[in-house]
């Protein structure tokens, strides 16, 4: 799905937990996520900390979208 959106000319960032799959599929901008059932959250954290974690991940995704890349790049 990432690749088809990229192909259409729209920059896209893939936020996902299993990075090797994203690399195989061909995503160009990749942000590793927290866990499979809650990629942008962590239910073990208090709500305000969980939200701060999510904000950090989204900011990282936005940074990836504003960063020029030559090929597949994982934004650790």
């Amino acid at each position: 799905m990432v690749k088809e959106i990229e192909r259409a000319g729209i920059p896209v960032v893939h936020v996902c937990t299993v990075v090797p799959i994203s690399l195989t599929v061909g995503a160009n901008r990749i942000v590793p996520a927290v866990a499979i059932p809650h990629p942008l959250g962590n239910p073990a954290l208090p709500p305000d900390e969980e939200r701060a974690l999510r904000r950090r991940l989204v900011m990282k995704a936005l940074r990836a979208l504003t960063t020029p890349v030559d090929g597949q790049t994982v934004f650790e």
Partner: protein
Amino acid sequence: MRIVHYLNQFFGGIGGEEHAGHRPEVRPGPVGPGMALKAALGGTAEIVATVICGDSWFNENLEEAKATVLGLIRQHEPDLVVAGPAFNAGRYGMACGAVAQVVTEQLGIPVVTGMYPENPGVEVYRRYAWVVETGNSAAAMRTAIPAMAAIVKRLAAGLEPEPGTYLERGLRVNTFAAERGSARAVEMLVRKLKGEPFTTEYPMPSFDRVPPNPPVKDLSKAKIALVTSGGIVPKGNPDHIESSSASKYGKYYLGDVDDLTAETHQTAHGGYDPTYANADADRVLPVDVMRELEREGVIGKLHDYWYATVGNGTSVANARAYARAIAEDLKKYEVDAVILTST
């Protein structure tokens, strides 16, 4: 021949998705599908132990998982490792593949597994294992086990498995040819020039790569859309998107939504434990934070719709078609960039 068998929490009899976080453990002898494998192997080989690990735990702790599972396997001094079959279960296939990689590299013994060709484990790890092609669900266990056993028997007899009985591994094998390379190449070229059929000796791998688009110049003026394969839908799943092998995607209005809650949204996705996404779907589709960033002017606008399908077992061809349709729609709305989340 001594075999150690690797299984996930489901086939290992520990439990379903709620146990996907199960840490690696080892049990003596065959377990679950190992029973059928034992029967199919007859006296050729003995399954001395079974290592079981939860699919989510393995993938979320990849390096630790590989090391721990390798340690448990090594204790039983196997001559061969069997993993799965994993059918079209993505996390399970990735785990079986990673086990194959670490076993091949560290123990230098063969690994036999079974997967559906679209399982991501095939693409990522095919060179580390003899991967038997299976159907896409456990209904194919009856044919998968004999096929895997046949390969184990060949290996036990010191023979290479027959080409065609496993998925191509992408390894080069030395062979002797009657003609030297230059003569064969010229013959091929002549055939090609004449328009006659010829068979290449080295098929080029088909990497379908798309070059990255230029970045977003000014976030504060950009319209950003959210797309997910994690199945986030309005509560009640109005389009009835299937929990597995989704036959469609959904497009949902987001203009009046500030936050996804247990009362308003849920996941339609099967295959992972939905508890956390159902309690707060922002954990998969971060609407709350995107709204906040929109208010703060960090991004120009959050696109008024989000798009969702279920990635679980969905064919590559379908996923491609959904994403093409979604991309067309995004262009219509002049969306500048996309955050796509996957579970």
